[in-house]
């Protein structure tokens, strides 16, 4: 991607010097320094739990550093709390949006800084200001729409506008692309460009190498709380960045041995289904998955893949059709019956469907099997067996921090939460594994790990259905790619023969000509 830099090296916006942040005995940031210039996009790269977010929370005043100094525009500052940070022109967009769902876009943006006429809220001025801002940076939002009705991408634009409305000229974006579709990611890149063109600085917390290459000027790498290096992004390759981040060479390409797919395990016939609004979204979909193959389901979000997976896993009732699994029709059966018939899945929403955040990791790891031996006998849980089981899996799947089996799942980082789910579902070892965006929010090290396990499942002659918005992921793993468009399979390509442009065309509804 062609990009123009707007860096003004003569003006330093932020300088963090030798920042140390300790939590008890744990050193989250160990003498980390960071310099951000005006108009610069500065990426902070690190694995899940490397200390990126901690560093930014220090900058935003959410944490006080144990030692170290922060200079803003050349002046030493004590950032005691977020309101001080906002005064200094520092704004932060968190990974999980903090919006009031039933409020409109405008109401959310002005929240806490409402323009008033006397004691009356001046909505007209507020709305005008929001429109001005969104025009200035070319961020399309509907000022009157309610948050619960707008897409994730637009919600993020609202968050950015909220920060801009408060007068920020240094923006911290924490994992901004984690929940966006590829199209929305492109739009975000455009927004970042507009911001820097206007002289704003952007700090981008991420672990997606592609995005760093595409939109940032400088990249600081952090590994296990330590400062590794700051590099000019133009001068390094993605491979270099990955190695610096993980501390070893990372395999981007998954080794797959050649395999002949076996008999059909899953046979989905003529599925019709409605979405949450009651609109027909699945319009007669057919799909098969055989033993020993990974079938990738590619498609733009909103074409029915979410609903399809919900029907396959029993979370949603379909209108008509059949789901044949090893000769048994599982259409509209309960999640339990489906699980027991050999389908497990890595759900798309790990905090909603995947985990019970208040439960310990050990308790989460027996979610489908708590009634079975050795985890319980005659209705009584067997603590020792549950803990031993968890210990093995935490170790095997490298869930960090190590020994986290007794911690509440909610205290783990997103990547490690995902590892817990993957550990559980892969250990279930069923005939069909449905993986929905299994690497969303994971760093390259963890992605490599997940991919390896998916391939291993296939190599064990199991069937895998991979549903993902990451086209790269689909292309590198799938033996066969099925494209979903408008509630139907619009085309099928052999994995090895897939071409990104062609897939893109099919995902957009173009017809494939053989």
């Amino acid at each position, binding site marked *: 991607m062609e990009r123009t830099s707007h860096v003004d090296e003569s003006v330093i916006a932020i300088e963090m010097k030798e920042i140390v942040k300790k939590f008890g005995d744990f050193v989250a940031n160990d003498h980390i320094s960071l310099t951000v210039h005006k108009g610069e996009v500065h990426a902070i790269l690190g694995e899940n739990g490397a200390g990126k977010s901690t560093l930014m929370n220090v900058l935003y005043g959410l944490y006080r550093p144990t030692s170290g100094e922060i200079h803003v525009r050349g002046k030493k500052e004590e950032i005691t709390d977020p309101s001080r940070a906002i005064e200094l022109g520092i704004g932060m967009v968190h990974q999980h949006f903090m919006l009031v769902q039933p409020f409109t876009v405008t109401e959310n943006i002005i929240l806490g800084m409402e323009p008033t006429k006397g004691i009356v809220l001046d909505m007209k001025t507020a709305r005008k200001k929001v429109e001005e801002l969104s025009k200035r940076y070319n961020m399309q939002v509907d000022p009157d729409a309610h948050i619960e009705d707008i897409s994730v991408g637009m919600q993020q634009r609202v968050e950015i506008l909220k920060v801009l409305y408060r007068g920020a000229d240094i923006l911290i974006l924490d994992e901004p692309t984690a929940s966006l579709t590829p199209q929305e990611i492109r739009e975000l890149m455009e927004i970042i460009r507009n911001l820097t063109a206007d002289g704003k600085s952007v700090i981008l917390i991420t672990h997606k190498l592609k995005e760093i290459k595409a939109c940032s000027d400088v990249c600081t790498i952090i590994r296990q709380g330590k400062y590794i290096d700051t590099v000019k992004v133009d001068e390094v390759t993605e491979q270099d960045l990955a190695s610096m981040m993980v501390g070893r060479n990372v395999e981007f390409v998954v080794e797959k041995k050649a395999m002949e797919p076996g008999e059909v395990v899953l046979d989905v016939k003529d599925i019709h289904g409605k979405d949450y609004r009651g609109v027909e979204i699945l319009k007669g979909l057919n799909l098969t998955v055989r033993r020993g193959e990974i079938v990738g389901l590619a498609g733009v979000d909103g074409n029915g893949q979410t609903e399809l997976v919900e029907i396959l896993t029993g979370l949603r009732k379909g209108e008509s059709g059949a789901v044949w699994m090893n000769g048994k029709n599982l259409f509209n059966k309960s999640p339990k019956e489906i699980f027991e018939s050999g389908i497990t899945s890595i759900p798309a929403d790990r905090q909603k469907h*995947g985990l*019970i955040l208040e*439960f310990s990791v050990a308790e989460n790891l027996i979610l*489908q099997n*708590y009634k079975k031996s050795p985890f*319980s006998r005659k209705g009584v*849980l067997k*603590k020792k067996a549950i803990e031993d089981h968890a210990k093995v899996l935490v170790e095997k799947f490298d869930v960090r921090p190590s020994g986290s089996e007794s911690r509440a799942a909610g205290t783990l980082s997103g990547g490690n939460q995902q590892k817990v789910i993957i550990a559980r579902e892969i250990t279930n070892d069923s005939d069909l594994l449905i993986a929905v965006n299994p690497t969303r929010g994971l760093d390259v090290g963890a992605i490599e790990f997940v991919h390896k396990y998916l391939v291993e499942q296939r190599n064990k002659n199991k069937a895998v259905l991979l549903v993902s918005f990451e086209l790269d992921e689909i292309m590198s793993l799938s033996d066969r790619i099925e494209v979903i468009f408008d509630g139907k399979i619009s085309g099928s390509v052999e994995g090895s023969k897939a071409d990104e442009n062609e897939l893109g065309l099919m995902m957009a509804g173009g017809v494939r000509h053989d």
Partner: protein
Amino acid sequence: MTKKKILQGNALYTVIAIVFGFLAGAVVLTVAGISPIATYKKLTDSIFGQPKYMIWSVVYGIPLIFTGLSVAFSFRTGVFNIGAEGQFVVGSLAATVIGITVDLPPILHVPLCLLAAAAAGAIWSAFVGLLKVKRGINEVLSFIMMNWIAFYLSNYVVNLKGIKAEGKEATVDILESAEILLPLSVRQMTGCKSVNYGIILAIIAAIVIWYIINKTTLGYELRSVGFNRHAASYGGINADRAIMKAMAISGAMAGLGGACHIMGNASRIAQFAGQEGYGFQGITVALIAGSNPIGCIFSGIFYGAMKYGGLKLSTIGAPKEVLDIIMGTIVIFIAVSHIFRHLLNRKLKNREE
């Protein structure tokens, strides 16, 4: 390290909340022109002055342990049982009716009364669960309505022929075979006419509830649904059924509380003029106990002692309502205990640095 443990646990903050509750009570008393020192001295004397006072405090605490358990169990399983009041009433009613109309030897009569009370409470509560899962009706609303239905049902039954005592606004006494009082000699020795086996039943109930929550697959199921219905369903747990089960168990506890109150202390139901509040007090008991079933034993007895001690405050001209203020303040301070936690932890940290 031990210091850290104390700061992280709940006990310390409960104690702080209790202290603040009494301070708030003192302020109110001072404003009202009553000496808080004299009041608290009287309160202390009324609870600890004689062994029999302490026994009475425990007797007063028994029904509250049960309603506390009922609410605590509901909290742990993700529903808010504000209907323990009604379940307590139907439990009392069931125990009273069976206690009056059925004539059996004690060995059968007592369990039958208890069982009937537990079943009545469970059904009363599970009905609310049914409305919730089938019709999506908020349980808080239906619980409160069920409280009033229980209230008027009880007043209706109290006045039925064969149940009502001649010339009184109450039922006749339950048969002796349905009572859970200790032998007469013990009662005479202790000087408390109502010393009963209820406390043993309450302790057993607390242990059973603790065991169900923490050690059984049923508890796992109910907790998982309470925390995250979606993930539980996804894991194959029938969330609707789990909610019904949780509500039924919670209701059974409140029902048993009503039974123990009748069979161990009251012996009859009087016509209600207003709600007696055992169920609502159970909310306070559960909150003070931090929803820990074992903790409910202690907080239930604490509340029982306050209620018993409060009876005698009028002799020195102090209103017993001051105790409601104290209990309310304690609950508020427990609700905001994370503030103390934060302050104390920060202080400790600053000192370390």
